[in-house]
């Protein structure tokens, strides 16, 4: 059976890892390759890197960062942020990503997911969804790094995106991002029950019980950023606590 995964996320701007709250107030927290190597050595099951500037000028520098992280880690590596075309995806994969995450561009043109899946395989394509709770049981999709609201229902979009070719859903709660209030478990459960692909819970994790709750709610993987960067906890401590809670993780 597939084992649940713990995934540190590196939000990268101008070659540095940054972190904010609800996508705002970004502050510098370190070097991407150094942080990634530390997390991988500590037992991270995968690394996600999101380019949070994603301007044309930053693109080639970002590929250098991707290559540096690739050299530093021996676990799977997903890269997202600003991937709009097959060529963007190919460049990220060539630089060392194992998978690419697509967000705004897929909302604007869902066929992009099919084109990426046809070219690289569904296992290579992650749909990243930023969602905010609007009323009980309804979440709205945001694009453009959380600045543009689309009116699209997040659960419906997750279904459509996976049917178009995405092999995994990276599901971020816009409300919980950077707050440490725990994952939006209703969102995790609503999406996990409606798609057949793995779902990565994201936004709000602080302690091991948050991760365990996300796994129980149906997530295959749990993503964290701020609490690790700020050393409020470590992957090693989270793994130990999850094992104590009876969760089987990969031996490492």
């Amino acid at each position: 059976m597939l084992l649940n995964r713990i995934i540190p996320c590196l939000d990268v701007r101008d070659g540095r890892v940054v972190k904010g709250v609800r996508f705002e107030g970004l502050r510098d927290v370190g070097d991407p390759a150094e942080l990634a190597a530390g997390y991988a050595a500590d037992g991270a099951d995968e690394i996600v890197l999101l380019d949070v500037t994603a301007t044309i000028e930053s693109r080639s520098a970002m590929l250098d960062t991707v290559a540096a992280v690739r050299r530093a880690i021996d676990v799977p590596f997903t890269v997202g942020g600003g991937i709009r075309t097959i060529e963007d995806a190919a460049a990220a994969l060539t630089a060392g990503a194992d998978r690419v995450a697509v967000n705004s561009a897929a909302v604007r043109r869902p066929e992009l997911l099919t084109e990426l899946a046809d070219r690289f395989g569904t296992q290579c394509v992650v749909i990243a969804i930023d969602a905010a709770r609007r009323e009980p049981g309804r979440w709205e999709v945001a694009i453009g790094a959380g600045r543009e609201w689309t009116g699209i229902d997040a659960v419906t979009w997750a279904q459509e995106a996976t049917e178009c070719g995405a092999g995994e859903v990276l599901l971020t709660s816009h409300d919980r991002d950077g707050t440490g209030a725990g994952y939006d478990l209703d969102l995790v459960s609503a999406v996990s029950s409606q798609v057949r692909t793995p779902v990565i819970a994201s936004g709000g994790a602080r302690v091991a019980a948050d991760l365990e709750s996300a796994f129980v709610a149906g997530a295959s993987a749990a993503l964290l950023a701020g609490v690790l960067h700020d050393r409020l906890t470590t992957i090693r401590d989270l793994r130990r606590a999850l094992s104590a809670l009876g969760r089987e993780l990969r031996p490492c």
Partner: protein
Amino acid sequence: MTIDLPDIAIIDTGLSNLASVESACGRLGVGVRRISDPESIATADGVVLPGVGHFAEGMARLSALGLVEPIRFRIQLGRPTLAICLGMQLLAQGSDEAPGIAGLGVVAGRVRRLPPARIRPHLGWNLVTAAGPEPRPRFLVDDGAASFANGFALDAAPTGWATAWSDDHGPFVAAIERGAVLACQFHPEISGRWGATLLGRWMSCVLTESATCC
């Protein structure tokens, strides 16, 4: 007499992400060169056949580059070869993913769609059980966890190959080995320390074989 570093070649069909394999070899202190010609497959001390994507496309690329016979010959001789993911599947006689398309046929058996499960593709970490005692394995000697990204796999142990297994709603073949040939359904290059150790064992075999045959 001088002992040269082994010549390890990775087959570049234009379909695969080579950076993960190159990085993993780099961390072991071994350089690899990219090749896509038949001669290098015959001459290299070690050959890596990577692969992601569709079975039919993978075979089409190998055929177009004239690599089918050189790879088959190398594997039949048991020379150091590492096949990864789709690369492993291409060794079989065929695949449910591409009915009517013949594989390299150096491994008896057919690649099957994984049994249905709530979550597909089979994406992430899964446990791998070491190969049994017969035939005796030289690489797949310990249990561990490996990183997978597949929807298909061999569902039976091919005769003559030491076989390691995984399970996800039913058993499937995680890796096989014979002579100096190792084929992994998972990605050893991104399977943590366990994967690096497995790669290291194969690299060490390339070194030994290249030193003894020349």
